[in-house]
């Protein structure tokens, strides 16, 4: 074969240079062989390493995603012996101290390092002192009812800044504990507990023992307590202690509310804002009072089954109510706005059962919320613990309590630990629970979010407040991605495939040699330029002249058809003066003219058909608003990006159809068109399929065009006139703000993984189809 036309550096010249012209010694030969071996080894190792590295991308991304599905880890860190039963526990943010409320109302603050008692105060003693002082003033006519009262029950209100206890003489005591943090000269953190003056709220004027009770206290002096009295009525007392900033005078204001009698309650709960009271009854009913409805207001009530309510808590954000019952069931409820029946009716909220968690085997005795997220810890009578996440409906961990007879449990403020109190010890658990928000359902299913009227797919990763409920459903993004892809393929498939068919079957090779590089240039246009044109030039233009686009759908095919017929009627001699397919030049002019005509006719047509303004007409007739940056704009721009891909691959498939098939068909009397549609098209169809697949893959991952030409709103509608948000644009928008290693970060990695796998699979299928087709052609 032709070695003669081999390039400038022909091997005959190269070989002597490489092999020294001197004397061929054994050592030279050995060195060359060694070099050859080393090179073989290096190239193989290097090549394999590079390929492995490239494919390693998938595994790296996977490794970033996987920690999300790991369940929580709970382990006993240690236990501290306490010489009395623990009724309630509070912990500071850094887990240096724990305050323990024991029987007899002794609040003891323990240092967790060594178990030493730092502060100890008796609530009952202080109360007795207060009583004595009060009794001393109005002479000794009716001395304090009974100095010997005792504490009945203790609670840690949600929020974790106070402990509360009810007394046998109808009062509720609250103790706010503040943790003051300072740093010493070596920048070590020193936390010291500060016990505020306890607040005393007398709920039962007749000083009977209280039934179910609840309290809430904040560091700024707002305290509320509620209890059911012996007659079944529910009373609420509120105390506000404010210090005048100028005079230092302490003002104390007190208010009371009482509500009608309800069946015997087992649990009460006041929210952190102190605006609402929740209650659960022996017979499984839930009650809900709002303080701003005033005295004597009837509660909202709803049944939660027949089993008695044995535990209640509110999750952070104060909306989700977790209900534990004596049959071991666990459910989450929150108020849902009801559609107003009449226009003037106030909006009404109904406490609604949102979701259930797997039932425990014994009555739930305690529920502890996290202050960070919507995690909560449930303890049942058998000593089994469960860690759950409300939004994702995920069972994070379940297992036997490491200590027997736990009576109270809390989750530490940073949600990295839990404290269980028993009759004689305090158990400290470490919780490793980095991504509770993620579950299959949270990512892809419908979830009933707080404040929503129904379960929905929603993406909203960040919000304004700390207690924001992250909405991480990828479904709207997947739908947005498919929507953008769909609209762009609607444009790109016909234009790409039909154009390629004409180019390969009807065009002179010389013309084809001009057109192919043009299409390659089209493929190489940076998508940021297309996105910019789509967003800033096309979108405003289309908003003004949308009817022109509608006209073009009719005008373009019509004008081309007429031009084609006209061309075919021209004398053959004239046509043969030009290379085959030269009529494309004519079509080019005709199409350009038709587009210009559509632009001119747009305004009159809009007046005639849409009353002057298409967007206004659209809103009036369909109720859908016209967004300037919408799916049509994206379809046009992204279609533009996909056309060259579909064109190039289809053209390849058409061109490679064996000439013998075409010649055979023509020889049998079929005309060109029949040959193309009945012989070429069916033979090349797998190639066209793979062209469409590869175009699909490109459209799915396109980022800049959708980022710039849509409003990036994560909504789930297939309507052509509004925007959407795609997986890729979402990554581009959110990952710069996502903290490294956080749930959002990993969720975005999951989105990237989805894109990777989807495009990889689609491309592989397309490639395999193409290779099979090539083999088939080779056989023909």
């Amino acid at each position, binding site marked *: 074969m032709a070695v003669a036309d081999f390039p400038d550096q022909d091997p005959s010249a190269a070989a002597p240079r490489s092999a020294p012209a001197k004397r061929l010694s054994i050592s030279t030969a050995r060195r060359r062989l060694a070099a050859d071996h080393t090179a073989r080894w290096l190239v193989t190792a290097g090549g394999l390493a590079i390929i492995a590295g490239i494919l390693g991308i998938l595994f790296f991304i996977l490794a970033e995603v996987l920690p999300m599905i790991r369940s929580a880890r709970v382990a006993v860190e240690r236990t501290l012996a306490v010489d009395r039963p623990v009724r309630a526990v509070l912990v500071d943010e850094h887990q240096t101290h724990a305050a323990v409320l024991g029987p007899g109302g002794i609040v003891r603050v323990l240092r967790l390092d060594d178990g030493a008692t730092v502060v100890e105060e008796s609530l009952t003693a202080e109360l007795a002192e207060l009583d004595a002082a009060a009794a001393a003033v109005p002479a000794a006519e009716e001395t304090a009812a009974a100095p010997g009262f005792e504490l009945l029950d203790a609670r840690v209100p949600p929020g974790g800044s106070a402990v509360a206890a009810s007394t046998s003489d109808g009062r509720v005591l609250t103790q706010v504990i503040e943790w003051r943090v300072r740093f010493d000269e070596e920048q070590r953190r020193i936390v010291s507990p500060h016990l505020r003056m306890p607040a005393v709220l007398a709920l039962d004027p007749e000083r009977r023992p209280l039934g179910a009770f609840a309290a809430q206290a904040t560091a700024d002096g707002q305290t509320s307590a509620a209890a059911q009295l012996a007659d079944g009525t529910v009373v609420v007392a509120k105390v506000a202690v404010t210090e005048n900033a100028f005079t230092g005078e302490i003002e104390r204001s007190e208010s009371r509310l009482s509500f009608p009698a309800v069946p015997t309650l087992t649990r009460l709960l006041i929210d952190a804002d102190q605006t609402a009271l929740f209650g659960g009854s022996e017979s499984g009913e839930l009650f809900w009072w709002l303080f701003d409805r005033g005295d004597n207001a009837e509660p909202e009530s709803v049944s939660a089954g027949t089993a008695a309510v044995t535990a209640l808590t509110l999750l952070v954000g104060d909306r989700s109510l977790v209900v534990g019952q004596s049959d071991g069931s666990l459910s989450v409820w929150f108020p849902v706005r009801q559609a107003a029946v009449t226009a003037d009716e106030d909006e009404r909220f109904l406490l609604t059962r949102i979701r259930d968690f797997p039932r425990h085997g014994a009555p739930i005795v305690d529920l502890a919320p996290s202050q960070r997220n919507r995690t909560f810890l449930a303890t049942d009578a058998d000593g089994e613990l469960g860690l759950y996440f409300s939004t994702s409906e995920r069972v994070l961990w379940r297992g036997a309590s490491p200590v027997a007879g736990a009576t109270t449990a809390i989750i530490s403020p940073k949600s990295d630990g839990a404290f269980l109190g028993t009759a004689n010890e305090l158990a400290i658990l470490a919780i490793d629970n980095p991504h509770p928000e993620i579950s299959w359902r949270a990512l892809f299913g419908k979830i009933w979010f707080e404040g929503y009227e129904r379960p929905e797919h929603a993406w909203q990763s960040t919000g304004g407040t700390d207690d924001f409920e992250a909405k991480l459903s990828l479904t709207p993004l997947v739908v947005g991605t498919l929507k953008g892809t769909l609209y762009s393929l609607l444009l790109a498939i016909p234009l790409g495939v039909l154009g390629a068919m004409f180019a390969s079957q009807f065009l002179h090779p010389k013309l084809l040699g001009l057109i192919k590089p043009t299409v390659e240039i089209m493929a190489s246009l940076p998508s*940021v330029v297309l996105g910019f044109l789509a967003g800033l030039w096309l979108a405003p233009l289309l908003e003004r002249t949308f009817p022109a686009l509608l006209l073009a759908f009719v005008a373009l095919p019509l004008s081309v058809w007429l031009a084609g017929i006209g061309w075919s009627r021209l004398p053959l001699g004239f046509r043969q003066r030009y290379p085959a397919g030269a009529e494309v030049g004519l079509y080019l002019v005709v199409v350009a003219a038709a587009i210009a005509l559509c632009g001119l006719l747009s305004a009159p047509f809009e007046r005639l058909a849409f009353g002057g303004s298409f967007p206004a007409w659209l809103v009036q007739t369909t109720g859908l608003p016209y967004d300037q940056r919408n799916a049509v704009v994206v379809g046009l721009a992204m279609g533009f990006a996909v056309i060259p891909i579909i064109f190039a691959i289809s053209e390849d498939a058409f061109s490679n159809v064996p000439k013998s098939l075409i010649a055979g068909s023509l020889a049998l009397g079929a005309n060109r068109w029949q040959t193309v549609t009945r012989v070429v098209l069916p033979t090349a169809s797998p190639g066209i399929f793979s062209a469409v697949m590869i175009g699909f893959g490109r459209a799915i991952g396109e980022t800049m065009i959708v980022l710039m030409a849509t409003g990036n709103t994560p909504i789930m509608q297939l309507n052509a006139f509004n925007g959407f948000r795609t997986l890729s644009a979402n990554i581009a928008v959110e990952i710069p703000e996502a903290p490294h290693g956080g749930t959002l970060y990993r969720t975005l990695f999951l989105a990237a993984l989805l894109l990777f796998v989807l495009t990889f699979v689609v491309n592989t299928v397309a490639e395999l189809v193409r290779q099979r087709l090539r083999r088939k052609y080779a056989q023909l």
Partner: protein
Amino acid sequence: MAKNSTTRRRDFVGTSLTALCGGALALNLLLILGLLLLIGVYGAAYFWQRDIVELTRVDGSRVLGEIHDRESIPPTPDAPEPGERIKVRVGNRDLTANDFQWLSLSSVVDRGTPGDAVVLERLEWGNFYGRMVELRHGDELLASGGDEVWRRFGPLHREKVRQRDAVRKLERGPIGDVNFEIEKLRLETRRLELARLPEAELARRQEQIDGRMAARQAEYEELATRLFAARDELMAETLVMETADGRRKEIAVGAIVRALRPNDMGPLAKSGLYLSRIWEFVADDPRESNTEGGIFPAIFGTVMMVFLMSFAVVPLGVLAALYLREYAKQGPLVRMVRIAVNNLAGVPSIVFGVFGLGFFVYTIGGSIDRLFYPEALPTPTFGTGGILWGALTLALLTVPVVIVATEEGLAAVPGIVRAGSLALGATKWETTWKVVVPAAAPGILTGLILAMARAAGEVAPLMIVGMVKLAPALPIDHHAPFVHLERKFMHLGFHIYDVGFQSPNVDASKPLVFATALLLIVVVTVMNLVAIALRNRLRRRYAGSAV
């Protein structure tokens, strides 16, 4: 040959549908040509100075500015007559808040192009349209009256431009150096704190650093005084301008980039201005948060990033291709690997960006920071986006392109050439390295150029791993070690996105974006055309030889 009706109908349908296919092809071509034309026209128009028109409206008010657009007003029930309106660039953003104003043509009663109308390009607040009134130096009147001021302004402005360059040189040169030194000393102090040295040694070294720091501070003070004096001098003379509606505005001559009387300019002068604006565009720094001035840092960042990427992608791609084509045993496994590598080119670029962020920036960059730059923490050095990470991410993105092109080049080298080399006694490696690879060089080059073109236009992954709106410093400067791979950089593509979509004044900056897009497209298209030409030569060269 006589045709019966069936044949005729058949032919008619065939002709019609063929025409539709041809129409599709024509539309494709029209789309690409139209797009290139659109960007070409808008981009090129950016540099052209239009005439300034003075419009007098029905109510007697006057507007001075450049006409930028014209469109018909859709009729409304109140005004059933369809009219036309024009978009006038009125500038004077510091007085009127808006750069552009829409005027209904029916409200314009008179239109003229006065010769004394002046447009000022300013460092801040965009263009100013008006007439020159006075030139002052503080309270001293240097000149008054349009023509007199215009004559005096020219030489004065040239002087001020020299002064402005001097100020800039001072800021960039000595002051930048001193700041750089001070920052270095600060980091040294921090490193000393981390070093756990004996007390005495620590104190000694600290003292040394403090001494140097004090010297630098003194130097800085002195330079700052000089800078302030130079700035005062620069801003000493002011030009009093009058707008079309009679408002006066005093503008420092030192803050004016250019003053023009476009209506007095001939075509030659305008062409000169056109060229000088193009030069300013490619060679100057941006102003007004990128919406005015040049795009030099973006061009520089793009070019440097692409070259860095090339250094990474060529060895990787060629080595992998050599292995796949020359060394690996061809079988189903290699075929699968080939398909996988091929398909990697179809994986969305944003996925590579995500990988680059997680792997290069956080994993590798984070480790480098902990090991080598602990004194700067928590401010990351390599643990944040930078030009190196951008280049490596794009190298991964484009390595399939290079592998595929190189393989094609290798495959095109006829087997007989290899056989000949081996027969002459060359080893396999010698054959590969000295015969096959040189012969495949056009293929490698094609791959490289395609990769560079793709990298130049890619934006999405770079947004994540290191591009910024405005980089404070170029990645190469005169401070050791001269090349700062950890620095963030600007990029043409991101410039388009940022100015077009993130800037507060999109209307005014749109022409600049068109110009940037034109530049980017020219660069990418030229690269691609070169690659296509190379590839075609390669194919022709081996077209006849069996593989």
